[in-house]
């Protein structure tokens, strides 16, 4: 079973998954789809996957440019999810110091996903995140959280 992020448009057709055009799919529907794809008994992992997919989609809407699409793929024999959100915008997703205007989306993704990243291909970028149930979550050990030294602060 593959744990490898796939290239845009290069997803394995034998993997259960689906692609949505974000110009036609509400964020709410993406959350529903994640819940439907992942089994109930996965508990926290399922909630986390819903949140992670929601954050990637929200970012594509707020910071990206159309066309925007979201692909959800079951991995790890159905016990994990790969969420891939593609947009045509030039900006680079990056962890920033959270403040009153935001900055907690990728902090959540970075803490909840086992791995995440960005890939650029033919002028589009895909932001992806993988959650799998059996791997140890790395809570608080991520050195790149260090860029957010005041992330609990209010101003």
């Amino acid at each position, binding site marked *: 079973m593959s744990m490898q992020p796939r290239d845009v448009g290069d997803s394995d057709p034998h993997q259960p998954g689906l692609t949505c*055009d974000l110009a036609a799919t509400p964020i709410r*529907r993406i959350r529903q789809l994640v819940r439907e794809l992942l089994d109930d008994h996965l508990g926290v992992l399922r909630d986390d996957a819903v949140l992670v997919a929601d*954050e990637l989609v929200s970012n594509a809407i707020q910071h990206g440019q159309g*066309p925007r699409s979201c692909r959800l793929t079951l991995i790890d024999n159905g016990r994990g999810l790969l969420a891939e959100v593609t947009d045509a915008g030039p900006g680079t997703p990056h962890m920033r110091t959270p403040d009153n*205007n935001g900055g*907690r989306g990728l902090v959540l993704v970075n803490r909840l996903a086992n791995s995440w990243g960005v890939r650029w291909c033919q002028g589009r970028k895909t932001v992806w995140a993988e959650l799998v149930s059996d791997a140890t979550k790395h809570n608080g050990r991520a050195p790149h959280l260090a860029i957010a030294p005041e992330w609990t602060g209010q101003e």
Partner: protein
Amino acid sequence: MDRPGVIRPANDRPRASRLSVDTREVDGAVVVEVTGEVDLDTAPRLREAIAVALAETAGGRCVLDLTTVGHLDSAGLTALVDATREAAAQQARLRIVVDANRPVIRPIEITGLNQVLHLYESVDEALDESATS
């Protein structure tokens, strides 16, 4: 589906997230009860509801009940952080009730906002003048 015939801009996309807000007065405090999903689409409504409640209390107490919220993402977290700051600026108090509701408490704790927001286990506790978060 990548190249739809009609490319809609981000502000013309379908929104379906559900959020209902119920505001009542209890012992001179305003209790704002929120049910549904707080996300990019609904966070502005949450902000607005808190702003109205804070204006009504006039330097008083506002209790935000999130125990029946089923989803809270970073857009919601930002709304909570900003409303808490705004309340403090108005000399008012914004107390947030979360109990053990996972979809709400998990993102709050993971982003460390339990150190910043004034969290309570129940509306009664939050209404208790003597209680501190």
